[in-house]
Structures are given as C-alpha cells and as structure tokens.
C-alpha cells in the first residue's frame, strides 16, 4: 500500500512534522508523568488479566466441590485455601472479579450514555427540554440511592429472577441511578460551547440538530465524560459489592467479590478462616483504589482546571 516517492505523501510527512501536538498527545504525556496514576493503571491491567485470563490456568472449575478438602488454609495446592464446600477460593475470587468488574463497567456505561445524552439535550435546546430534564435530575439527586437500590434488590429477589439474568437487571438499576452528576456536567459544558463561533459555522452550514450535538458539541465534552466515567466505575463496583454483601446484588451461585464476603456472616468462617472473606475484600479495595488513581490522573491530564476537590 505504501508508495514511497509519492509526492502527496511526502508532503503529508512534512506537514505532520510541522503539526502541533494534539490535545490528546498532551494529555497522554501528562498522564504518563503522573506516577500514582501509572501505578493505578498497571494494577488495574494486572487485575483484569488475573480475572479474565487467570481462570483458564486454574486446575479447578467454578462449582467443583470437594468435601474432602473443605476449609483448608492457604497452601501450595490451594493458594488461597478452600471454603466450606471445598471450592478453590483463588478461582472463585478471579471469577467473582469478572462479574464485579463487568457489572461496574456496564452499569457505568449505562449511566454515561443516559447522562451524556440528557445533559447534551438539556444544554442544547434549553427552555422546556432543559427545565424538564433538570427537574428530573433534581429528583434523582435527592433520591436516597441506597434505600432505593436495596428495595429494588429485594424486589429482584422476590420476583425469583434467575441468578444468571439477575446481574443484567443489577447493571441496569445501578446505571439508571447514576447518571445525574454527568448530565449536569455535560449540560453546563454544552451551554458555554453552543455560544462559540464554531457553532455559528454549523448553523451556517445548515446542519441538523442531531449532527450538531453528536458530531460537534459532544466531542468537546469527552474529557469530562472520560474522567467522570472512570470515577463512576469505582463507585459502581463499591455499590455492587455493598448490595451483594447484603444479599441483594449478585446472588450465589454466581460469585461476586461482595457476595463472597458474606462468608463472614458465619462466625466460625469470620473468626477462624479469614481466607474465605479477606481476599475478595482486598480485591475490591485494590481495584477501586487503582481506578480512583487513574481517574484522578486523567482529570489532571485532561483538564487541570477541573480539579476542585
């Protein structure tokens, strides 16, 4: 495909050299200088590899019970020990991580889509659309999230939803309750952006509203969306783990970090067999810390002005 000597390409080569560094490049460079954020990124990558690829190397399977080997302390054969059914904790922690990470990511994706679109619509059309959307946002903002999530979790249990399908409902619920913050951020950005010259240009070109919003306004809000989404994943993982710990989130036999910690409800496991519940807890802590470090690094890299808290 490459044709050296083609004059157009030569010209392009030269132009590239002259071209100023793109904002994304600058952001990447700033991010790479942030040591804590890089450590967070490395930890998160390791965690993902461990959870998604690790189980492939495990000699055990998810619900393989082995009563002969129950309640073993960590040893050479079972690195993190076994639980009261003789299941390998290490494997369960990794598979639980898959679920917890996926729930966190998907739930955040849902709230980001809702928040970004509603925020953009409110900021772009102003007037009625803005009033209505922001009123709804006010309602969601004052809605006590935890009680609502707990109630919805109880409803899922009462409806006897299959544990496999239940995680989809869970993602939806957590996602639906988390869009307000981003909607407000995007709205206020769009309100200022829509007054700038490049928007007059889109007006002159006679572009449709949809194109103006999604092709010209939204790309400018991507930095705040990225930062807010990153921190959102951390929050969603914490929410899921708390709900699952209460038995209202991901329910057995599907493992999640939160519901593995329910092992602590049995006094003997709690007291004498900490390996049944401490590893998943540490995984939550490590993962969420890593994500928060990355989110903070991204905020510094993408928009230093945003750092208010």
């Amino acid at each position, binding site marked *: 495909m490459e044709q050296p000597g083609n004059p157009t390409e030569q010209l392009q080569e030269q132009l590239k050299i002259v071209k100023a560094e793109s904002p994304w490049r600058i952001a990447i460079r700033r991010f790479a200088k942030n040591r*804590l954020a890089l450590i967070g990124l490395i930890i998160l990558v390791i965690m993902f590899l461990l959870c998604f690829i690790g189980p492939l190397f495990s000699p055990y399977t998810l619900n393989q019970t082995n009563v002969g080997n129950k309640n073993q302390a960590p040893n050479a054969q079972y690195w993190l020990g076994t639980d009261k059914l003789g299941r390998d904790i290490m494997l369960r922690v990794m598979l639980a991580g898959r679920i917890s990470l996926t729930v966190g990511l998907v739930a955040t994706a849902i709230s980001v889509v809702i928040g970004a679109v509603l925020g953009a619509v409110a900021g772009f059309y102003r007037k009625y659309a803005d009033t209505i959307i922001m009123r709804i946002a006010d309602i969601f903002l*004052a809605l006590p999230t935890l009680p609502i999530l707990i109630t*919805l979790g109880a409803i899922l249990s009462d*409806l006897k939803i299959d544990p496999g399908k239940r995680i989809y409902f869970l993602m939806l619920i957590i996602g639906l309750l988390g869009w307000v913050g981003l909607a407000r951020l995007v709205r206020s950005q769009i309100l200022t952006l829509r007054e700038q010259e490049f928007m007059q240009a889109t007006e002159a070109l006679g572009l449709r509203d949809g194109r103006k919003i999604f092709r010209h306004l939204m790309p400018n809000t991507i930095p705040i969306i990225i930062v807010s989404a990153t921190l959102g994943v951390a929050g969603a993982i914490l929410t899921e783990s708390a709900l699952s710990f209460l038995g209202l989130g991901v329910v057995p036999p599907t493992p999640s970090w*939160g519901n593995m910690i329910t092992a602590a409800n049995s006094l003997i496991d709690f007291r004498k067999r900490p390996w049944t519940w401490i590893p998943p807890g540490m995984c939550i*802590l490590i993962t969420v810390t890593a994500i928060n470090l990355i989110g903070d690094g991204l905020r510094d890299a993408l928009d230093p002005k945003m750092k208010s808290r």
Partner: protein
Amino acid sequence: MSQYIIRRLLQMIPTLIGISIIVFAISQMVPGDYITATQNPNMTAERAEQLRSLYGLDKPPVQQYFIWAKNMLVGNLGDSFQHKMPVTEVINTYVWNSFIIAFVTLILSWTIAALVGVFSAQFQYSFFDKVVTLLVFLLMSLPSFFIGLLAIKYFALDMKLFPTAGMTTAGLNASGFDYIKDVAKHMILPVAVMTTLQIGGLTRYFRTGMLEVIRQDYIRTARAKGLKERTVIFKHAFRNALLPAITLLGFELPGLFGGAMILERVFAWPGIGQIYLASLNLRDYPLMLGFTMFLAVLTLLGNLISDILYGVADPRIRLK
C-alpha cells in the same frame, strides 16, 4: 435572604412530589405484602383479608398513594406494621442512636481532616504529603462493610479490645454514668470505622483549599512582615481555607440523621439504618416509605443549608 429561603422551600415541593411518586411506585412493585411476609401459619384467608382492609392494602394503588400523601402532609407517616406504632415515633426512637455515632464521627473526621489537610498542603510534595495523598485514595476506596468486618475481627474478636457488636452489654442493667461508659465503649469501633471512611475525601478538600490560599498575595505579605510561620498558616491562611469547607456542612445533614445502613448492620448498632433494613425483610411499607421520604427531605434541606452557608461564608456571593 428570607425571600430566598422561602422560594427555595417552595421549589422543594415538586421535587418531593416526584420523589414520593417514584418511591411509592417502587414499593408497589414488591410482590407480596406485610401479611404474606409474616408467614404466620395460623393466618386464615379471611383473617388475611380483614387485616389487608384494616391496613388499607386492598385499595387500588393510586388511592393508596393519595391517602399516604395526604397523611404525610399533616406529618402522619402511618403506623409501622412491625413496631405497632407511628412511623414518626419509630424514626424518633432510633434516629438518636444513629445521631450520636454520626455526630462524634463528624467532629472527629473534620478535626483530623483539617489538621492533616493543612499540614500536607503546607509541606506540599514532602514525604508526609505523598503518604497522605496515597492514604486519601485508599480511604476513599474502602468498602465500608469490609473495613467494618476487619475492625471487628482484629480489634474486637482477636485482641478483645472492644465489644464486638451492639450498643450496650447484654444483661447489664447499668444506669447513669455506668450506662454512658458502656455505650461509649461500644461506640469506639463504629465511630473509628466511620471516621476512617469519611476522612479521605475531607482531607483532600482541605488540602486543595489550603493550597489555593497559601499561593495568595496576602500570605506572601504576611510572611514578608516577618510573622511566624505558625501565625501565617493558622491565623491568616487556615481561616480562609476553612470557609469553602463550611458549605460541606450542609451536605452532612442526611448522614447525621439518616443512619449508616450497612455499617449499622455490621456492628448491630440499633440505629435507624438498621431498623430500615429490617423493615425491608418484613415488607413494612409505611416504615420503608416514610424513612425514604425522611431521607429525601433531609437531603433537600441539607442542600439548602449548604447554599445558605455558601452565601454566609463568602459575602461576594449573592443568593438570588
């Protein structure tokens, strides 16, 4: 100012109506009701019908909503099925147990966060500052129930330093000073855990606030006058760094009275949060709905207070 407050209070009405509709609609989705949840084997079909009509559970949902909303307007949240007394009374009984730990936590976390934040800003990029920054991230990422469980295991069960759970020692009929001492002993662990959880975000806030202030010209002036560093930091800088934090006080309101649901369960602390979780298992709708509305009102009032404090802290901000 009073006009502003009245207008804001009026603006709360549509929001509260919206919240009440959402909350009520969700509670209607719950299959089964209090009568089925109690699983009384002696319950006959007729008796169940009688009870349903007694509690108003047989009416159509829309009618139930309006009855509930109308009663709420006169401060009647209905009777809790489970506790056999008005919901307001249930809330009033348990909310104070939540309040005492939340209040002590508030004082502790604000004091520690302010001090640590100020020092870490004063010695920015020092080793201490770096440790604080990392710790802040760790603390902000702690799952509350997990740290609660860890604390109980190591400090209460293994080292036997504190009682494991509850608010009083079972069977101890102490009164007066002994009672207070007993409660205080039970409080230490939950308060320590809650403080740990709150301190991260606050420290960060104080640190950023302080960093902004010490770069101001008047701080340089104060130093140039030859004032002692301690005077510069605590008399000139700290006060101004504290001002923006005052607005955060308003947001603490729901936390003060709303109870910490998950931690109260972990520590078996008889606060309103734990009572709420228990009411859910028994489908005690009036209590569930009432408490959720109570929290929503607290959140809205907290926002209002924090906006007012914003104006108080910074006279340049006009409240319109």
